[in-house]
């Protein structure tokens, strides 16, 4: 398993994280299977966006309503950790309800920001390799 992530999409994730700081950013990664083709910035509607995110459910519904094969075309979900490491927190794991999708995290803790990908199923969150395209 791997995630194929175009350089420009990776850069857009980092740009979104920088623009959103000190709040967490979030968004959707669309493509085909393990290959990301494009990014849609999400609206973080969580009431404490400095430490939490929730993608606007209406935006999510609109994004996935037009295609039944969500598993295939919704490749992943991204969000940022403005001050902590780019790996799933206990809260991330406890609230992960999209086991077919890849979770991409970026952290502004270091410069340049790191970007990593994970699959979160149950209490497991193994890192998966990112292949830049």
């Amino acid at each position, binding site marked *: 398993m791997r995630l194929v992530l175009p350089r420009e999409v990776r850069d857009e994730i980092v740009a979104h994280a920088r623009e959103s700081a000190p709040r967490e950013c979030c968004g959707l990664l669309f493509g085909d299977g393990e290959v990301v083709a494009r990014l849609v910035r999400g609206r973080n509607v*969580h009431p404490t966006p400095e430490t939490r995110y929730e993608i606007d459910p209406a935006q999510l519904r609109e994004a996935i309503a037009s295609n039944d094969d969500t598993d295939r075309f919704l490749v992943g979900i991204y969000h940022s950790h403005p001050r902590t490491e780019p790996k799933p927190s206990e809260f991330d794991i406890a609230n992960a309800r999209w086991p077919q999708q890849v979770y991409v995290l970026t952290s502004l803790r270091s410069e340049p920001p790191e970007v990593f990908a994970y699959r979160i199923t149950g209490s497991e969150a193994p890192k998966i390799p990112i292949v830049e395209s």
Partner: protein
Amino acid sequence: MSVTVRLPGALRDATGGETKLSASGGTLREVIAEIDRRHPGFASRVLDEGGALRSYVNVYIGEDDARTRGGSGAAVPDGSEVMVIPAMAGGR
């Protein structure tokens, strides 16, 4: 009345992997109960002990958020598409 129910995300665990089902019922609660009869345990994943929608589940009837139409008691018109969408949420 017959409706189509879509289950993106983790809720398929409660329906044997099915992500699109046909169900019947005049209200959201009745639709959920009908699916629960076929897939016991489904209702408890969507509704809390008081019968309200769980906080981490968002349900749309067509384009309308069910919470704005009465929550689990919302009317579900014949032929509707119901989407039961787990929250995409987390944080440090």
